[in-house]
């Protein structure tokens, strides 16, 4: 039977919700173990959160100063060492997992599956390609580990109702010194919900016109308690940070409500929101492709409509 090891994504203090989604993916097929590996400088708090996830059978806590920066080159040999006890090694399809899992797979001498969106069995999976214009069903061989990333937008996070045992493990693998973490720079948020997990998202596109005008997007988002998003065009133009990009090469998200303002809806953008609950599009161009997938479309000048909407949402 399948034994799944999930590599936890975290910032040293909190477990990223992407990990709980990987657990849900693992729970969708028959397993005899779902363990989580927490590689950190001091993984106490994160390991406790991982142990609480429903369905998890154990947590392996690996504390090492070299694990502070979450570098793929440092983490991969440690994950490989643990992989011997498992049939599957999963990570989230976030920049963390995309960086790490192919390196793990190659060190193990096996291929990797990207963006699992559903599992038909422990060895049969569906994944999107061609910017989500096609869905592939693939079968992995059973005689070698399945290394994969899980498309987080396809799964609900496992609940925190469990209490799995935590064991500590030391690092035996030789860790490379050729890669060094310097710093993280982040100016997003401002107390707003996280784009990847928010129930509501208000993204702005090229139509917003400037970084200053993006203030309008912030105001609408705050009115709705929503996270901010952006199209590639808006990020390329410097209206918003890269971490806010939604789409094929940005974040793939599944909020309950997506209120797109001034976004025309290139196919690469639509890929990022296919699983959204309700998509609202506000755009002056009635022919914008986003209207083809929007549940509610409003053809209007955003500079008139958005202030009116903010007003209508009241206080």
């Amino acid at each position: 039977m399948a034994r799944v090891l999930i590599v936890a994504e975290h910032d040293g203090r909190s477990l990223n919700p992407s990990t709980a989604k990987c657990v849900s993916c693992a729970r969708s097929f028959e397993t005899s173990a779902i363990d989580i590996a927490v590689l950190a400088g001091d993984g106490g708090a994160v390991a406790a959160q991982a142990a609480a996830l429903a369905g998890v059978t154990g947590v392996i806590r690996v504390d090492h100063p070299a694990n502070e920066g979450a570098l793929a080159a440092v983490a991969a040999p440690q994950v490989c060492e643990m992989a011997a006890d498992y049939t599957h090694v999963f990570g989230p399809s976030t920049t963390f997992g995309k960086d790490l899992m192919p390196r793990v797979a190659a060190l193990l001498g096996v291929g990797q599956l990207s963006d699992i969106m559903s599992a038909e069995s422990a060895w049969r999976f569906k994944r999107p390609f061609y910017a989500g214009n096609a869905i592939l069903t693939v079968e992995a061989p059973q005689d070698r580990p399945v290394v994969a990333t899980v498309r987080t937008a396809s799964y609900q996070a496992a609940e925190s109702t469990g209490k799995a045992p935590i064991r500590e493990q030391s690092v035996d693998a030789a860790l490379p010194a050729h890669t060094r973490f310097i710093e993280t720079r982040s100016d997003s948020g401002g107390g707003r919900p996280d784009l990847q997990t928010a129930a509501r998202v208000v993204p702005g596109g090229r139509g917003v016109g400037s970084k200053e005008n993006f203030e309008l997007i912030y105001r609408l988002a705050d009115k709705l308690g929503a996270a901010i998003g952006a199209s590639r065009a808006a990020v390329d133009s410097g209206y918003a940070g890269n971490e806010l990009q939604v789409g094929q090469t940005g974040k793939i998200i599944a909020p309950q409500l997506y209120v797109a303002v001034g976004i025309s809806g290139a196919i690469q953008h639509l890929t990022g929101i296919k699983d959204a609950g309700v998509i609202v599009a506000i755009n002056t161009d009635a022919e914008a492709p986003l209207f083809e997938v929007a549940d509610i479309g409003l053809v209007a000048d955003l500079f008139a409509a958005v202030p009116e909407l903010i007003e209508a949402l009241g206080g």
Partner: protein
Amino acid sequence: MTVINTILVPLKRVVDANVRVRVKADGSGMALDGVKMSINPFDEIALEEALRIRERGEADEIVVATLGAQVCSQQLRGGLAMGADRAILVEVDRELEPLTVARTLLALVQREDSQLVIMGKQAIDGDNNQTGQMLAALWGRPQATFASHLSFNGGVATAMREVDAGLEVIEVDLPAVVTTDLRLNEPRYTKLPDILKAKKKPLETITLDELQVEPETQFRVLGIEPPAQRPRGVKVGSVDELVQALRQKELI
């Protein structure tokens, strides 16, 4: 003396980013007949970055390479026209999984004694986002993935990476693999004289056998299907109607 003698830039021939591709009616694959093909956009960014590094005097030579049928030499010529010095086509007659591609690239790195590989973070057809990381692993060297800025100081590269939380800065010792994100640069346009000049630049064709790479297929494709369609929505005529519609769905 430059630190980097040869930068290897792998280029993949893919369906042009502006083409809306569909699954064939019989589900046997994608409908690609007569569709415009281009260099994978992320690979074009990789080549542009390599050109800038060479123009700054930090590298001597740029080699572009691809794996595929003879027709892929079109994209290699495109890379030569952009400014690469020479090209290598590893001729193969079938789709290769990323691990085999990475093994092939490693053989090329060793053959060319390259200190730096710059490549796209993903190809827009397979959307795998694996090959660069796999190459770095097999090579036992650093990876700077999703780079949006890159600089060199002696044998050390500093890369800014586009990550989910924002931007991350890492330092890697050369040799290394860098994979590109969208904001690294804006690739130049090729001019007609460059296209003509590119015809005279060396383009070598070799085989996997010569590189001693055994292709391996691990994943069995059981089917390809179009994605589920979202039901057609409604258009509203005013902000008031929009608010009503949202209330009806209990979203506000």
